[in-house]
């Protein structure tokens, strides 16, 4: 039986890391927040990525990396875990380090203007390296590891000559990493031109890439099997424009969702300006966005545990608004969803022709043996009371 596509939301505290895996094993990583795993309570995202991605000649690679925007909690670990530089120079020691090659980068020039952290710098540098190859029409420009897609409009730098690499809001992308997908596509909502004029501290947040990932199980299927909305840290003003534009161009289908990754880690900013105490009423447009949910739709809060306190994000009042729309059972928080021996586990959904469903449970076996990674193997065991 063919493998189903799946969507995995990693538990990374306040931050985003989501992995889309297609039937043909194509993987699309949306943001990353890879933290240290020394404390025994942090899920090892890198280890799971290395298990989930494909390999060519022993080199692990993701087909596409979509960085919604450059905030630290969306690109943490890019520098240390992903390969940067000419792909032909990927070495044996890079393999040992487990550097993941990004075959195609999705890059939004607008969001890359203000660098705030070294991971973002690394992403920007790598993007520029690739753009230069394309600009110079280098023969290696289309090799995996050199591919790049420009999302949205230009900021200060001008990439007009590379328009053939560009996708704009309203576009539907069906080709990923030089391969046409029949059953999967992405509708791009943002960033749009208005963002260029946006001002203020939250500029980066409001200019996130926002997109709808669309899944089918058969090419003749009329409707989609699953629709997953990703919006980085986009705020209510962005969503207001998205709503307006999408309706204007009669693209309502692009607003529907089964899975909604709550923007900015369940922040109040999706509903209204912060602080919530001063702007306690959710914007109508934000609520309308949520009303495009389909049957049994789920909201994912990729954030810390949501408590009834003043924290933001995640914001308790924001959660309440989501729950009003989808019920408590369909509001899933990555930190609390499934915790095994204190470590939160990813939220995974498989795409079937009947919609999203939890993956199959894994059977055990009657024969077992411990592995080298066992705690008892890696700690001394003391027997008896005598002194050594």
């Amino acid at each position, binding site marked *: 039986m063919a493998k189903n596509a799946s969507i995995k939301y990693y538990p990374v505290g306040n931050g985003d890391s989501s992995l889309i895996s297609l039937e043909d094993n194509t993987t699309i990583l949306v943001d990353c927040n890879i933290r240290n795993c020394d404390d025994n309570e942090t899920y090892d995202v890198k280890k799971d990525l290395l298990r989930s991605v494909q390999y060519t000649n022993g080199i692990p690679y993701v087909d596409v990396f979509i960085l919604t925007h450059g905030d630290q909690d969306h690109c943490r670990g890019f520098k240390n875990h992903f390969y940067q530089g000419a792909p032909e120079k990927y070495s044996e020691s890079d393999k040992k380090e487990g550097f993941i090659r990004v075959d195609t980068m999705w890059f939004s020039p607008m969001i890359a203007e203000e660098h705030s952290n070294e991971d973002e710098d690394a992403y920007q540098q790598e993007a520029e390296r690739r753009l230069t190859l394309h600009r110079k029409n280098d023969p290696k420009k289309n090799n995996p590891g050199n591919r790049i897609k420009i999302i949205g409009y230009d900021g200060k730098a001008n990439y007009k000559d590379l328009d053939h690499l560009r996708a704009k809001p309203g576009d539907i992308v069906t080709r990923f990493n030089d391969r046409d997908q029949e059953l999967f596509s992405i509708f791009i909502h943002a960033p749009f031109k208005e963002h260029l004029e946006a001002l203020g501290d939250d500029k980066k947040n409001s200019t996130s890439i926002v997109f709808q990932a669309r899944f089918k199980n058969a090419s003749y299927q009329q409707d989609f099997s*699953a629709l997953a909305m990703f919006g980085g840290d986009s705020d209510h003003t962005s969503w207001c424009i998205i709503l307006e534009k999408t309706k204007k161009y009669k693209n309502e289908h692009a607003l529907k969702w*089964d899975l909604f990754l709550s923007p900015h880690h369940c922040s109040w900013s999706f509903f209204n300006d912060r602080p919530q105490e001063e702007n306690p009423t959710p914007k109508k447009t934000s609520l309308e966005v949520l009303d495009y949910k389909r*049957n049994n739709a789920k909201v994912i809060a990729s954030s810390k545990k949501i408590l009834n306190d003043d924290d933001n994000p995640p914001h308790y009042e924001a959660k309440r608004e989501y729950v009003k729309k989808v019920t408590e059972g369909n509001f899933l928080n990555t930190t609390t969803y499934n915790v095994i021996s204190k470590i939160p586990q990813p939220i995974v959904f498989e795409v079937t022709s*009947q919609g999203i469903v939890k993956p199959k449970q894994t059977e055990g076996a009657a024969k077992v043996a411990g592995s080298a990674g066992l705690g008892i193997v890696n700690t001394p065991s003391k027997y008896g009371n005598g002194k050594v």
Partner: protein
Amino acid sequence: MEMEKFSDSLTIFANDVENPVLQDSLKSLERLIGDKVRILDWGNGCIAIPIEINVDLPSLGNFENLDIREAEPIIIVFDLINYPVLAPRVYTDRINFPKNNLAHLYVAVNNRPPAFCYVRGNADEWYANKRIEDIVIRISNWLRDAATGDLTENGEQYEPLRLEGYSGSIIYDYDTILSVITSKAAFEFGDKFSIVLFERLNLTGRHTYKFVKLITHKNTLTTIKEVDEERKKGTEDVTRKKYHFGYILWNEEGDLKSEYEVNIPRSWEEFKLFCEFYCINYEEFEKFIATCNELNEYVYFPVIIGIRRPSQLIGYSSNIEFINLQFKLDSGDVKDGKVVNNISVDLLSHNQPLTPKLASHISGRRIDLDNSNVVFGCGAIGSKIIMHLARSGQTNLTLIDPDYISPHNLVRHVLYGDEVGKNKAEALAEKIRMIYPFEQTNVLNGPSFKKGLIDKKETFEKCDWVLDFTASEAFFNKLAALKSLDGCKVVSASISDFGNLGIMYKEGEDRNPRIDDLQVYLYSLSASDENIKNWLQNERLAASSNNLTIQVGVGCNSETTILSDDKISSHASYFSGALKKEMAKFSIKGRIYLNRILDEEDYRIETKVISVNPFDTFKAVNDSKWSIRFKSGIIEQLTKEFSVAGKSETGGVFVGVFNYKTNTIHITDSIKAPIDSKSSSTLFIRGQSGLSKKISEIESSTGGQIGYIGEWHTHPDGPNFLSQQDMTSVKKHKEECSKLQPPLPVFLSIITPDGIFPHVF
């Protein structure tokens, strides 16, 4: 609404569970559900445990709106004695479970709910490596798949009914019975009602019916006569065949039924309801069996019901599913053209007879079954390879062997003691026909080709592969030069090195390299391959002769040959595996397949495949009966030396082997002119420094198979023929060579700007 459960009708199990493994599993179940389990009596030495399991359902609603719920009650049934060797069976506990719409459920029997078919294959084997918790997970996943529509794994095809409780079996080809419905291959005795002749096999216990033929308009009377003949024989007569007339009923095209649940009829009354449900007209059938019940000698007879399904059945060629029943009808059960008693009806399991196509499918190897092949040699190696081919469906075989099975052959041959005295090819062909008793196989046999036929092109015109397992050097020579094989692909396999080395030569495209090229090539590898060198040197020692034509090969046709059956099987299975791969995808180059058994301190087997480029072939300029065949690369080497020498003559010495039987000269290498050679633009004096040592090394490493065979020199400005001086040297050489035993031809080639001109004297 209160859900009705099947388990409500079961009573509490009153005894103790004594099986300790079962006790453990029940405890595991209790841990899983966090509560005590209720132990109910299922009957037949089994207990039933009702539990509720959680199912993950898809977001957009269940596939075809199937009523699968988040909490599903199931019953796990354990055999009190034989658990865990017998895996638990799992049933739905919900009376209104949507069983009619789901594949992978067993058809319910005896008023029990349907059981989940949760393993493809044998559940007991699966459970041997699983725990009770895994069954719960599996059933939960089963229900999840049912809800998402992933349960039917074969996409758009229809899963046939899963039945159990068979009382016998029936063997027929699905497509043959299908032809009755789709192309009226049998006479219709009534509306959508035909008759088939079956034979009941002489087996004790279960009834097994084997298809004999369809009853057609033409053969009705002769068949009745035929059946009567058998009836007349005494019941003690072992040749008496138990013929049964069976019946086929089917429904109208367009009467599709997608519901799975057929209450498989267990009695005449149920049968009628069943027919009505599937729109099958049974009245004429009833009238026929009630009035012509004398037609069948026996009270039992098979009835096949054809039901149309909405799409093609998985594993079959059409959408018609056959339900196979057995009736028991006595003369007292009928009156006035009606069946008056509620006679019992049994279920028969259908077995597809083995066809070459099915055998090919089961053995997982795609080979072109339309290939036609001639096999020489049905001895130990040959018989094993032939049976490997036959069992994988390759029956277009013409088997040739003049030999008869002797008792000592049984040590290493596939045939058995009852064949002693028979011709090997004939006995083998007979065995192959018995694998496919329902099929017309194309296997032929004979002691040899009739006089001259082997040399006729027509004999091999339709033949794809010619396989030589004769282990005969004489026949090998014959095959190598046999012109009638020109369109064929030729393979020759034999064993050597006291049975430890299996060698299979596979010729290249257009018979180049040929089997003899490959043989010489293999010998020439001894220069670099220690294994081959040792083998050839051992062979020479064993032959205790310096004769060039030492026997390479081990014959098995003697009682004195010490060699075990397992060694022969090891070679044969390797050859057959490699051969089938070649048959599926022919490699353009020649191939040598080696299977080496290392019978040392540890018993080991290693294999090697060597690819061989085509040889460059010429005819001798002065005597066209001689073929000259150069190992690839040598001509290039000569041409290079020619151009390096420029205006000066140059030359060298050839090594290889002459074969008088095939009039072939094989050249495997060229030794450069020794350093004491002298040359000018018109003269070349081949020196001798170090030459003898080199040739002796080659001769020694190949066990005498390869040695000095001739010389070459260049004429930078022509002519293309031998000069006077050249002829003088030839004469001198000839004088020495003709005195040798056997004599050695003189082989001299000249190379000019126009090419190479070989001469043989």
